[in-house]
Structures are given as structure tokens and as C-alpha cells.
């Protein structure tokens, strides 16, 4: 069959209102392009693996508590081995934070860098978009990854714990919801700000991803080593330590059980949970600032 085009000429569009939320198509397209890469699926698979693992822990714990009185299970033993709900949730947020960082290095490192490399800024800003529209679209796309892989599963785990446990134990778990969400959101904020800021500074997605992971590991190493050497304020440089401090303070984790300690080795904390929170926000703000600086530098208006 001959491949032919039968066009109907140029048709004028009805002049209707055109006020869509511009960041949405930008975010959706960025995520669509990322999803088409195999590496993205692999990264997200690791995130899913954590959810399944910690989900199993929570379910096991809930079942042990539910059947504690029947003599079929020993909740105290389960708690000693697999930890309290607080420990599991706190550990999940911290482990998933690191896994998400790897996934984001694959998924989001090119969100702005690829546009710069392809010379696509003209393509965006020759249309009725503001810098804020573009930035919001890219931030939305970046934040979608930790929101989907960290915040939503954290909520899910808490929901399972609350819904599945007995009424006696459930009362204590209700109050864990907001702190769990707050901790996960702190992690999301840092991850989003850091990766989008670096993406705005670079031109090659792979290089940006590598720098992002190296930065996370470097800051963590410095933030752990210097306080141990007698310089406690440097602990606030480490996002991992900051998040650990915030999680510990919000969830009141206390002592660690065997099982959770195997999955996630806790470490020393910073002196102030508020200080850690502010350090996370400040580092994220630097990232958002880098994005703003880049757009102001390259785009008028």
C-alpha cells in the first residue's frame, strides 16, 4: 500500500480559553521520557524491593501482635528480633532514601541537563511559558519519584501496621502517621532539591547522576568522620545523618532490634533535630536556587 498523506489544508482553531496548568505537561513528558529507559525501571525495581521487604516485616510484626494472646505467637520475641513499628518505619525511610537517591540519579539527572544539551530551552520559552512554569514542571517530575517511592510506601506501611494490628496495639500506632510522613517528606525535599540543582548545573545526564551520588556519599562521609574527630557541627553536612536525626526525634525510635539493625545500621545523631531539619532544608534550597539561577541566566522574563 502506498503511504500517502491526504491533508485538509490549514485549519484555524476556535479561539477558546487556553489556560492549562503549564507545569503538568512538562512534568508528565519528563517522566514519560525517563520511563522509556530500562535503567529507570531497574532503579525503581530496587525501590520496590525495599517496600516488599519492609512490608513483609510490618505484616509479620502485625500478625505476631494480633495472635499474641492466642499463644500461637510471641510478640515480645518478634519485637526483639524485628523491632517495633517505629524502628521499621524509621529504618524504611532511611534505607529508601538512599535507594531513591540512586534511582533519582538515573531518572532525574537529565531533566534539565538534557534540555540544555539538546538546546531545547528555545523550544520551551518561545512558547507562552514563564521560568516558573518550567521550574515547577521539572521539580514536580523530580519530586514524583521520591513521593512515589518513599512517601507513599511509608504511608502504606503505616496504614498496614495500623489497620492490621489488634485494637490494643493499634492505639499506639495511630500517632506514628504524621511523623513518618514528615520524615519521608524531609527526605523527598532534599533529594528533589539536590538532584534538580545539579541537573541545572550540568549538561550531561550521566555526569550529573554520578556527581549527585558522589556528593551524597562525600557529604555523608564528611558528616560522619568529622564529628567523630571532635567537630560535631560538621555532622549537619551529612543528609543521611540529618535524616536519621530527624527520624529518631519524630518517631522516638530508641533501641534497635536485631532484624532492623541487619538491614540498616544506625549511627550517631546530631545534637539538634531542628538543626538537622534546617540543614536538609538549606541544602535543598541551594539546589532550587541553582535551578533558578540557571533559568535566570539563560532565559529572559
Amino acid at each position, binding site marked *: 500500500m502506498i503511504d500517502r498523506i491526504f491533508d485538509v489544508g490549514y485549519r*484555524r482553531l476556535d479561539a477558546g480559553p487556553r489556560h492549562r496548568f503549564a507545569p503538568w505537561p512538562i512534568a508528565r513528558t519528563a517522566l514519560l521520557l525517563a520511563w522509556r529507559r530500562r535503567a529507570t525501571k531497574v532503579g525503581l525495581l530496587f525501590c520496590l524491593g525495599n517496600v516488599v521487604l519492609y512490608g513483609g516485616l510490618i505484616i509479620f510484626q502485625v500478625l505476631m501482635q494480633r495472635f499474641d494472646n492466642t499463644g500461637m505467637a510471641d510478640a515480645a520475641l518478634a519485637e526483639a528480633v524485628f523491632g517495633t513499628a517505629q524502628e521499621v518505619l524509621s529504618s524504611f525511610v532511611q534505607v529508601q532514601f538512599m535507594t531513591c537517591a540512586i534511582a533519582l540519579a538515573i531518572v532525574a539527572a537529565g531533566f534539565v541537563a538534557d534540555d540544555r544539551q539538546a538546546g*531545547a530551552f528555545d523550544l520551551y520559552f518561545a512558547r507562552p511559558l514563564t521560568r516558573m512554569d518550567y521550574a515547577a514542571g521539572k521539580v514536580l517530575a523530580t519530586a514524583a519519584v521520591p513521593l512515589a517511592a518513599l512517601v507513599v510506601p511509608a504511608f502504606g506501611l503505616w496504614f498496614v501496621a495500623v489497620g492490621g494490628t489488634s485494637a490494643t496495639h493499634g492505639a499506639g500506632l495511630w500517632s506514628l502517621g504524621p511523623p513518618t510522613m514528615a520524615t519521608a517528606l524531609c527526605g523527598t525535599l532534599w533529594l528533589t532539591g539536590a538532584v534538580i540543582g545539579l541537573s541545572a548545573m550540568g549538561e550531561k545526564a550521566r555526569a550529573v547522576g554520578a556527581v549527585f551520588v558522589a556528593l551524597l556519599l562525600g557529604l555523608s562521609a564528611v558528616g560522619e568522620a568529622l564529628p567523630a574527630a571532635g567537630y560535631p557541627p560538621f555532622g549537619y553536612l551529612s543528609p543521611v545523618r540529618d535524616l536519621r536525626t530527624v527520624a529518631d526525634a519524630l518517631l522516638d525510635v530508641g533501641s534497635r532490634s536485631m532484624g532492623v539493625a541487619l538491614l540498616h545500621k544506625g549511627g550517631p545523631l546530631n545534637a539538634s533535630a531542628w538543626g538537622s531539619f534546617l540543614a536538609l532544608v538549606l541544602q535543598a534550597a541551594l539546589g532550587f536556587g541553582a535551578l533558578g539561577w540557571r533559568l535566570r541566566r539563560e532565559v*529572559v522574563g
Partner: protein
Amino acid sequence: MLLAFQGVRKVFGSFAALDDVTARVEGRAIGLLGPNGAGKTTLMKICLGLLAPDAGDATVLGLDVRTQAKAIRMRLGYAAEGAGRIPGLSGLESVAYAGELCGLRRADALRRAHEMLDLVGLDESRHRGVETYSTGMHQRVKVAMALVHDPALVLLDEPTTGLDPESRDALLDLIVQLRDGGGPAVLLSTHLLHDVERTCDACVIMQSGRVRFAGPLADLQVMRLQTFDLRTRGPAAPLAAWLGARGCGVATGRRDDALTVRLPENAEAGLIWAGAAASGCALWHLEAQSASLEEAFLEAIGPKP
């Protein structure tokens, strides 16, 4: 008024890309002509609000580029020179995405994208990734992206660069179709005179950041009609001397009874008749030189400053 510039200046470092650009342009298809580095792309980017002029005023479709850039961009389509693509998207997705960025709903953008790709003649390959496209296919996608939201004016920056003759023909036909078929007005930036001659009814000629001519093509060609070939009965030397003394450019031919005379600005052919009477030369042939656009263009840009 489609485009109006008053004393527009744009400087990059110590280089003045635009220097006192002043022009008022009206028409359905306007050629923006000039050699490479003349400032065409800079002028287009100022129209879009992508660059802010350092001095002067510019209005597009009656809207000020400094204060109403977003409203202007809603009514403009732009096909940039060079890459300007999003790798990973297909041609269809690229065009639909451009529509969505201009405020179309997703379903409408997709339907419109199909229409525009039909219009520019991109067949089933519209479903392939843009990074696999040839230059010609890529140019078509860029034009479709510029048209998808139905702008009032579409800016095409060197759209025929790198095209084979057939694709170039098709693209120029499309511009003519837009011009004559109720589509958006077109501002075609190019350094190819033939493209302008074939598609445009007005042009702006730029060189070294300055506007050398702005107006209908017919006016440009009239400029050339100031040059005449003439023959006299007997030697033409007295007439040549008389005209030369009055500021005319005079070139003698191989024959002593033939002259080529270029009248000074604002002079009319009557000056030659007056010269013939005064010098006693009888004219038996006088003809204005026919002007091609190329000659008119070269004359308009003159020697490089």
C-alpha cells in the same frame, strides 16, 4: 502593524548584533534577508521576548516585546534554527507537546498534531523518535510545532537549510499555501534570495546589524530601475560628460555611441533627455535595466562597512 522596530539595539559583549534597527513591516509573508551574522536570529529572538533589547522599542502584532512577551508568544509560532528538539519523543509527540505547552488540552493537541503533520507532509515516520529523522523531516516537525497552536504569525528561522531540492520545494510551497490560504502570516529568515522571491510579498534586508531595506518586494526592485542603457546618433562623449558633471554614474560601452547611466537618488529619467538636448546628442535608444532581486539585494546591502 505586524512588526515595528524603533532604534532597537542589542549588544553581546563588544559586538553589536543589532544597531539602531528601525523598520515597520506589514504583509502576509515577509522575508528577513541578510548574510550570515546580519542579526536576523537576534531580531527574531527579540520579537519572541527571548532576548531583551538594550535600547529602542519593538512591537509585534501591536504588543510590546518588553511588557507583553507572554501574550506575544501565545500568538507567535517559532521554528528555531538548529537542533531544538527533545530526544526520545516521536515527531507526533513533539508536536502535540508543543501544543500542550501553548495551552491546548491533550486530546486537542494530539488531534491538531496529526493535522499539522499531514500539512507538512510527514507520513508514518511521525511515530518514530525524532533523533532518527533526516534534516528534512526534522525541519517539517519544527514547522508543525510552530503551527500547532494556530498562531497569528509564524517565525521560521532558516527553514530550508540542509534540505534536498524536493523537500525545499515542498516547504516553500507550504509557505505559499499559508500565505494565500488564510493561515498565519509568515516571517521567513533566510539568506537565500530565491526563497524570498518565491514566497514573500515584503522583505527586510539586514546587514551588520542594520536594516538596509524594509518594504514590499516590488519597491526593492524599483530601486534598481534608476539605471539606464542608452544609444546616441554619433559619439556619446558630450552627453557622458554632461551627465557625469551632474552626479550620474556613467559607464561607456565598447561602442562610442553607447552608455550605461545610473541616475543619482531622487533624479528622474528626464535628466537624460535634458542632457541630450544640452549636449546636442540625439537619443535613439533608452531603456531602464531590468532588475533581478539578487541585483537589488546586492545593491541594497552595498559594500560591507
